[in-house]
């Protein structure tokens, strides 16, 4: 059955955003999000209402976290080569 026609769609969107939709029900909802554009649109409508955290809760992560990400994702492949960086700034290569 299409979730987009479920009379509980709004309640499901709410519980999904809140985080209380768990387990098989959560997976079912996420599948519907991928397969049914109407469900995704309805969720986006409710997403606009989720509160923004204040800067008070910001906590700097440990310095080691970024190098680990960079290494595991192989980010060096996506870096601008140094000679092009130099020439982009107007300095002759």
């Amino acid at each position, binding site marked *: 059955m299409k979730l987009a026609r479920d009379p509980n769609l709004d309640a499901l969107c709410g519980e999904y955003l*809140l985080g209380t939709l768990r387990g098989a029900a959560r997976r079912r909802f996420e599948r519907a999000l991928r397969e049914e554009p109407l469900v995704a649109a309805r969720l986006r409508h409710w997403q606009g209402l989720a*509160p923004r955290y204040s800067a*008070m809760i910001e*906590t700097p*992560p440990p310095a080691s*976290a970024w190098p680990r*990400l960079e290494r595991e994702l192989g980010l060096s*492949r996506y870096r601008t080569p140094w000679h092009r960086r130099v020439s982009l700034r107007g300095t002759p290569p």
Partner: protein
Amino acid sequence: MRSDADIKRLLLATAARGEGAAEAFEGLYKACSPLLFGIAQRIVRRRELAEEVLHDGFTRIWAAAGRFDPLAEQPVAWMAAIVRNRALDLMASHDVSRVDSYPEEDELDRLFDWSPAADDSVDAGRASRWLRDCLGELRPQERQALVLAYDRGMSHSDLAAHLAQPLGTVKTWVRRGLANLRSCVEECMGAVR
């Protein structure tokens, strides 16, 4: 924290996977990791688990950046949802003990920023204010259940244990709380249209 427009630009440059995608992603990390790490810590409550959540979260943000819809979504909220989801998954697979206090209504104003963001539309700015007012109008137990679920990532059974109430009761509080919140916000929307 940079403006939403900056974050959006960095996210799109990350998604493009061209030269400079790594620099854009690094900029995104620098701008948003303190907030996302803070969110992860509020849910998983343990620093080493929050580090895993942040790592997995940014791995997913890198992989999923191409699916971010700049016209329909707020970039920080989009990233926060990824990190929250990862934190909730992790909570489901770890037995993390919880020692929590009850959130009081004034905690809502410490935790969340209800003022409109600089680049919010007028509607979005108003909606944020309405949400705050409507949360204030909920029954205290409904508000408490909603805040604990959202902020601390509590499941229905976590809530039942934490609030010392039967499972059915907290499910009702969550369901009614959401429904009341929704009709209150919709009423506010209707009143200005």
